[in-house]
């Protein structure tokens, strides 16, 4: 039996190996930005973008809310609209993991809770990437000080400490940016409109 298994496995490897030479430059870039925004707001007839320039006070407000450092004072918030009605918001964030980065899109409900997080590109070896089910734990979570804590609200079973922490921080940051931007009237239209 064991010899059969070995033969099957080796044959499979030899048959499949040439496939890895097939050109597919998007293997680790799962979705481009425009494509991602379309999937974020499938019903939108218009996606507006607002550049958010944060002042120092707003930065410190966000950092305290997110329990994470901001490395930029410029954020772009996209808003999906249908007939002038807001369908939600999206923030795309690229952050470093070990040496390489990942890009994640956060889709935010008008009430400031996370609708979903979607990894758009991942450049570390794939085994460090968080699974869908794990990412879905953040769905519908909001940014108040007692939530989104790794190891408490969000389990970290796989031992992927760096990637898990990094993604969790990034989610908190995005929600905090959105919250502060809304509170300070930095968006074109107020949330919920």
């Amino acid at each position, binding site marked *: 039996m064991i010899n059969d298994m070995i033969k099957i496995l080796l044959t*499979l490897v030899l048959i499949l190996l040439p496939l*890895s030479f097939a050109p597919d430059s998007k293997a*680790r870039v799962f979705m481009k930005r425009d494509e991602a925004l379309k999937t974020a707001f499938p019903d939108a007839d218009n996606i507006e973008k607002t550049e958010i320039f944060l002042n120092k006070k707003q930065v410190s407000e966000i950092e305290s809310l997110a*329990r994470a450092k901001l490395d930029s004072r410029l954020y772009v918030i996209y808003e999906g609209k249908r007939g002038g009605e807001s369908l939600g918001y999206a923030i795309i964030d690229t952050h470093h993991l070990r040496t390489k980065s990942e890009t994640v899109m956060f889709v935010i409900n008008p009430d400031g809770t996370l609708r979903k997080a979607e990894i758009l590109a991942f450049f570390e070896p794939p085994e460090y990437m968080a699974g869908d*089910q794990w990412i879905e734990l953040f769905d519908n979570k909001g940014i108040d000080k007692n939530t989104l804590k790794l*190891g408490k609200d*969000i389990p970290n079973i796989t031992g992927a400490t*760096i990637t898990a922490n990094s993604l969790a921080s990034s989610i908190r940051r995005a929600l905090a940016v959105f919250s502060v931007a809304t509170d300070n009237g930095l968006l074109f239209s107020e949330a919920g409109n």
Partner: protein
Amino acid sequence: MVKLGSTIGSPYVRSFIFTLLLLLPAIGSASQELSEGQKEFADDLAQIRSNSAKQIKKQTKRRNQDENIIVAQRLSDDEAETQDERIEQLEEKLESVTNELRQLKSESTPDDRLQSIEEKLNILAEEIDNIKQASVVEEPSYEAVYGAGPAASKVYLKDRGLSIGGYGELIVGQVRKDEDNIVDAQRIVLYFGYKFTERIIFNSEIEFEHATTDKSGEASAEFALLDFLLWPELNLRGGLLLAPFGIINEVHEPTTFFGVFRPSVERNIIPTTWRENGVGIFGDIDLQAAGSINYRAYVMNSFDARGFRASNNRGLRIDGSKALFNNIAFVSRVEYEPLPYIAVGGSVFLGNTGQDQAIENEESPFNGDKFSGFFQMYEGDVQFQYRGFEGRALAVYTSLDDAVRVNALNDLTGDDSVGDEQWGYYLVGGYNLLSLANFTNQYAQYFAPFVRWEQYDTQSSVPSGFERNPQNDRNELTIGLNYKPIPNVVVKIEYQWLDNQADDSHNQFNFGLGYVF
């Protein structure tokens, strides 16, 4: 009066006529204010415009003087002649429109300038955002409105190349009664990855154990492999591979497990860190609401029966170093995560270990024999994490054929016999007390006391004619603490009660410092 031919021929007028034709729509409203005569002229001109509209439309896309000439020449001489005077009038009108424009420009309000600055700002913001998110921005187009900006950011798209990481277990100390106290720089491990293409990736861990090769240390490749990525569900891997068996063998960064030392079951029965040369498949299968499955299935060079001992399996490993592969083993692990809080895993190893080696033992009736030494290992485990609680349970069972011949091969007699069956399990649980606290800074600290209970017997059965050594029937209780000031750094202390059926137990205190980046 200037002759029409020369008028048309003059570059100034050619440009003027052309500009005029371009401006016609713009000055359409102005023409309403023209006198009757002017209206007539305007009508004529409109006709000219209509006559040459198609041609003009085509030509205006490329704005150069040659085109002007062509446009101008297309106007028939007759048409042009009658309009000679009117052109002059229009020229005057154009001058007044230009003056109006100039006036408008000079009256430009601060709001206009603000708008222009705002627009520039937006362009800059967009450029910066494109650079930040380069990986997911569409491939830049050189016809982009903002010129070279997107092209300049293209370099960021080339997110290939080197990735570096690492972990270590430092100041690993043992304080023991009636024995030497030891402190060791146990492991310093560097991780290097290199992405050749989106589909072909090199990954490795280079390990320095016990500080220096001058003493008892070693420098080894812990793994070094090439991944060939096809689909999330099915990918290929080849090289020096970590055997996918148990929990710790593949995931052994110090921040991921309780205790200074790895559980004894995962050292003495599952010989971590166990790596051999091989190829295989791996992948993740998303079952949507039913969770997810990830698996690895490899063929690797098998163990070497010369390494079998009564007390542990650590000598079985060849570590991929000029490894015998007269016998090839099948090693596989499947993990199922029904919920993110829980993972259930199972591993199997099947392989002959005789490696075509003859027994050289003149005192043995098996002298000169070759044997298969079929070795099977099965493992099952559960990991869970909920709120501050974390726990693991693991059980392993092994069975060895030809144990008598293995004993002959290794000159093992009496109670030194290899076990033809082994089993072991451990349970470990901890609670992060600081999960109750609310941190206001970036990192939630982690302070988790834990308890681990292990029971294992590497000689739970021996071939007839040999005896079990009760020293190999062991149980160990460990109580300790993992403290992580940040998630990447861990300080560990523990106290162990190490006991066996021979009752020659001893206790020890251990401490260690670990990191991962």
